[in-house]
C-alpha cells in the first residue's frame, strides 16, 4: 500500500481512495526563503531548451539555485463532461506523448463505472500501446538528456530510434500518437507489430555506449537526488522503491502473466532515473516480443447505466489515474492525477542547491509534460 496523490477530492492510494486532502509528503518539503543577495532568474515559458511552454523561476544569487518554482503557462480548457465518444477525443489530446496511458486510464475508469468487461485481447492490446508509448517516451527523455550534454552522435541515433518506434506505432495503429485508437471495450488495430528486433539490437548498442561515457555519467550523478518512498514512476524506482502501477494498477494481473519485472536503481539521482528508463526500454521490448496481437473486432456490452470508477495505469513517468463519474452516455465528473504534477514537485525540491547548468539534465530526467498539468476540465 502506498500513497499516490491527489485525485480531485480524493486522496488516491494504491489500493483505495479516501476522501479529503492527501497528507503532505515530508521528503518534498522545502523551506521557502529568498536570499538577501539573490534575485529571481526567469526562464521560460518560451525557450529553446524547453520542449514545452513552462515558466521556471529560479531564485539564485548567481549560478547556484536556492529555490525553484515551476509555473504552467499553457492552460487549456478540456470539455470532457459531454458524451463519452467526444470526451475521449479530448482525453487523447491532453498529453500527446502519454496519449495511450491517458486514454486507457480514462476508458478503464468508465468501463469500471459502467461495468464493461473488455475482452482479454483488448487488454493485451492496451498493454502493447502503453509499452510502445513507454519506449518512445523513454527514448525522448534519454535523447533530451544526451542532447543537453552535447553528445551529438548518440543523440541522433536516439532520434532515429524514436522515429522508428513512431513508424511501428503508425503501422499497427494507424496513428503515431494513438489518436482514434481506443474506445469503450474496443481497440482499432491494423496489423501485427514487426521490426522490433532491429530496434532492440540497435537500442542495446546505443544504450551501452551512452552509459560507458565517463563525462556524461559525471553530469548526471548526484544531480537532483530525490529519495521518496511514496514517490511514483522512475523517480521512485531510481531510489530502489518498486513503486509501479504495473504491479498494483488496473492491468497488474496481465503484466504478471507476461512476466514483468520492475527495474530499480539505488541512487535516486538523474543518473538513476536515466538508468531506470534505459533498462525499462529493454524490459518493454521484451514484453512486447512475447505478445502476439491479432486484429479482431469487438462489441462490448455495458451492465450499468451509471456509476463511477477509477482507472490507474503506469504512464512512462509514473502512476496516472482518472476518476470518472458517468451517467448513461454522459460524463458527469472527471478527476485526473497526472504523474507530472508529482514530478514537478519532486523536480523543484531536488533542484535546490544545484547549479544552473545542471538544470536541463535534471529537468529532462523527470520526464515532465506540462500539457497534462495545465488542463481544466469543463
Amino acid at each position: 500500500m502506498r500513497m499516490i496523490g491527489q485525485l480531485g477530492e480524493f486522496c488516491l492510494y494504491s489500493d483505495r481512495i479516501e476522501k479529503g486532502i492527501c497528507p503532505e509528503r515530508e521528503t518534498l518539503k522545502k523551506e521557502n526563503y529568498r536570499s538577501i543577495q539573490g534575485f529571481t532568474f526567469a526562464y521560460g515559458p518560451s525557450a529553446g531548451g524547453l520542449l514545452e511552454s513552462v515558466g521556471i523561476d529560479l531564485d539564485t544569487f548567481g549560478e547556484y539555485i536556492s529555490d525553484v518554482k515551476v509555473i504552467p503557462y499553457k492552460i487549456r480548457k478540456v470539455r470532457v463532461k459531454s458524451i463519452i465518444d467526444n470526451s475521449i477525443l479530448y482525453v487523447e489530446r491532453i498529453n500527446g506523448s502519454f496519449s495511450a496511458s491517458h486514454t486507457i486510464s480514462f476508458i478503464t475508469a468508465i468501463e469500471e463505472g459502467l461495468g464493461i468487461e473488455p475482452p482479454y485481447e483488448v487488454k493485451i492490446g492496451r498493454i502493447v500501446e502503453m509499452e510502445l508509448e513507454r519506449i518512445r517516451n523513454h527514448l525522448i527523455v534519454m535523447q533530451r538528456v544526451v542532447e543537453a550534454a552535447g553528445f551529438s552522435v548518440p543523440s541522433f541515433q536516439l532520434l532515429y530510434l524514436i522515429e522508428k518506434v513512431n513508424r511501428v506505432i503508425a503501422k499497427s495503429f494507424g496513428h503515431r500518437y494513438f489518436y482514434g485508437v481506443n474506445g469503450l471495450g474496443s481497440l482499432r488495430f491494423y496489423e501485427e507489430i514487426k521490426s522490433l528486433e532491429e530496434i532492440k539490437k540497435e537500442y542495446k548498442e546505443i544504450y551501452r555506449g551512452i552509459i560507458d561515457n565517463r563525462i556524461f555519467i559525471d553530469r548526471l550523478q548526484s544531480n537532483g537526488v530525490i529519495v521518496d518512498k511514496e514517490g511514483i514512476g522512475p523517480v521512485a524506482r531510481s531510489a530502489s522503491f518498486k513503486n509501479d502501477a504495473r504491479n498494483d494498477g488496473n492491468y497488474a494481473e496481465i503484466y504478471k502473466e507476461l512476466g514483468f519485472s520492475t527495474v530499480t536503481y539505488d541512487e535516486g539521482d538523474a543518473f538513476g532515473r536515466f538508468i531506470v528508463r534505459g533498462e525499462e526500454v529493454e524490459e518493454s521490448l521484451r514484453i512486447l516480443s512475447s505478445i502476439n496481437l491479432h486484429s479482431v473486432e469487438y462489441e462490448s456490452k455495458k451492465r450499468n447505466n451509471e456509476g463511477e470508477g477509477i482507472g490507474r495505469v503506469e504512464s512512462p513517468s509514473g502512476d496516472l489515474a482518472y476518476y470518472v463519474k458517468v451517467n448513461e452516455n454522459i460524463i458527469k465528473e472527471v478527476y485526473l492525477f497526472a504523474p507530472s504534477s508529482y514530478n514537478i514537485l519532486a523536480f523543484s525540491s531536488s533542484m535546490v542547491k544545484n547549479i544552473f547548468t545542471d538544470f536541463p539534465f535534471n529537468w529532462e530526467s523527470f520526464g515532465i509534460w506540462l500539457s497534462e498539468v495545465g488542463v481544466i476540465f469543463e
Partner: protein
Amino acid sequence: MSWFLKGIRKGIKTEKEVKEIAPWATSLIGNGKFDDCPTKALDNGWNSGKCIFCRKCYPNYSPSGDYRMGSVTRRVPLFKRSFYLYPIDTGSCGSCNVELKLISSPQYDMTRFGIFFTNTPRHADALVVMGVLTDGMEDAFRRAFDAMPNPKLVIALGSCAISGGLFGKGVKADVIIPGCPPSPPTIIDAILRARGEK
C-alpha cells in the same frame, strides 16, 4: 569503442524518398457531408486546417496517403538555403512538439535543406506555432513575434494552431501545416514550399 567509429559504422540513414506515412496524417478523401465531425471540418468539403484526424468520419472519408497537406500564403526565397525555426508552444498537447523535433532525425534530416532550430527569436526566420493560443501564452507569442527581425514567417503547425482544433482559437499564419499532429514529411514539405521551392 568510441562514438566516432560507431557513428561511421552506422552510415548515413537519411532517406531520399519519404517512406512509411502514418495513414491518419495524410489528407482525407471522401464525399458528402458528415454531421458528426467534432470540429466541423466537413461542412463544406474537407477542411484540412480544422480536421483533427479522429476517424469519426471513417469510412465516409478515408486517408489518401498524400502527406503534402501544407499550404503557403507567403513565400520568402531569401530563406532558400538558410532557414532558422523558433518553435513556440502556445498550448499544445506535446505531440506536435515531438513531431517537429523529429524533422531533425537522421531519417528526415532537416539540416540537408539548411533548416535549423534556434533558441532565440532574434536568430529566427520563422516562428513555428504549436497548439491552441492559450491565454497564458498569448503575451509570450506576441513578444516572440515582435522579437523576430524582418523578413519573417509564422508557421502554424497542427490543427490546434491553425483553427483551434478541439480546444480554442488558433493564430494567423503565413504557412499552414495541417495534421493532428502533422508528420515530419508534411512539415518539411511545407517548409520547403514556404521558401519558394517546389
